[in-house]
């Protein structure tokens, strides 16, 4: 009885290990989705219905750092490759990329969620921020 309960425990541990390994991409995409949702709710609308940054979210580039601020960081969903380097990129291209994500022309789920929360003015600010040369 003692040995069978130990077996059950071992089996359970093994099952948990496998599960946690398998669900990593799912967890990552969930985190990205929640992140994007958070980004969206950080926006308010003015009386004209235009998106404006919520007070206190002036440093909205914080939502980029989690993936683009880590050298060598890789996407987990929908498949695995390096998140592109954007620091030093041409601002015009960064704006074009964000607009393409917002319109759906580009399909990465996390980036679509984040770009959807950005106004064109914010996109331009982000592009100018990331496009500046290395210090």
């Amino acid at each position, binding site marked *: 009885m003692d040995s069978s309960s130990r077996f059950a425990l071992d089996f359970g541990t093994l099952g948990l290990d496998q599960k946690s390994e398998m669900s990593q991409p799912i967890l990552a995409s969930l985190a990205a989705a929640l992140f994007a949702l958070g980004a969206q709710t950080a926006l308010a609308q003015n009386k004209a219905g235009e998106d404006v940054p919520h007070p206190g979210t002036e440093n909205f580039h914080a939502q980029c750092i989690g993936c683009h601020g880590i050298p*060598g960081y890789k996407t987990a969903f929908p498949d695995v490759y*390096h998140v592109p380097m954007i*620091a030093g990129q*041409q*601002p*015009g*291209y960064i704006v074009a990329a964000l607009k393409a994500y917002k319109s759906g022309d*580009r*399909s990465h789920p996390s980036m679509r969620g984040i770009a959807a929360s950005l106004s064109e003015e914010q996109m331009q600010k982000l592009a100018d921020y990331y496009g500046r040369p290395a210090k």
Partner: protein
Amino acid sequence: MMRALVLVLGALAAMSAQASGNADKGKQKVAQVCVACHGADGSKPSAPDQPVLAGQYYDYLVRALTDYKNGRRTNPIMKGFAAQLSKQDIEDVAAWFSSQQASPLHNQR
């Protein structure tokens, strides 16, 4: 034990980061196809809305070109150029651009 594990993981990471394309062949292909807009080494785009490619990650470049080729990314100009590239060409071109050290791209928050 821990040290061995670190070594194995390090080796795996190095393998996965290694480009499988041929940068020399990529250089020739770039000189035919990409140079007019991106520059020979990918560091001098000819228009403000075109990206710097020099020093960009290999696997991201492969992904981007493959997406243009199969229509998942919809830029009409890039669609035409990517359509001319085989899978091997894409890997070679990505190997060339990603191996360029002189680039405005940098790791910074």
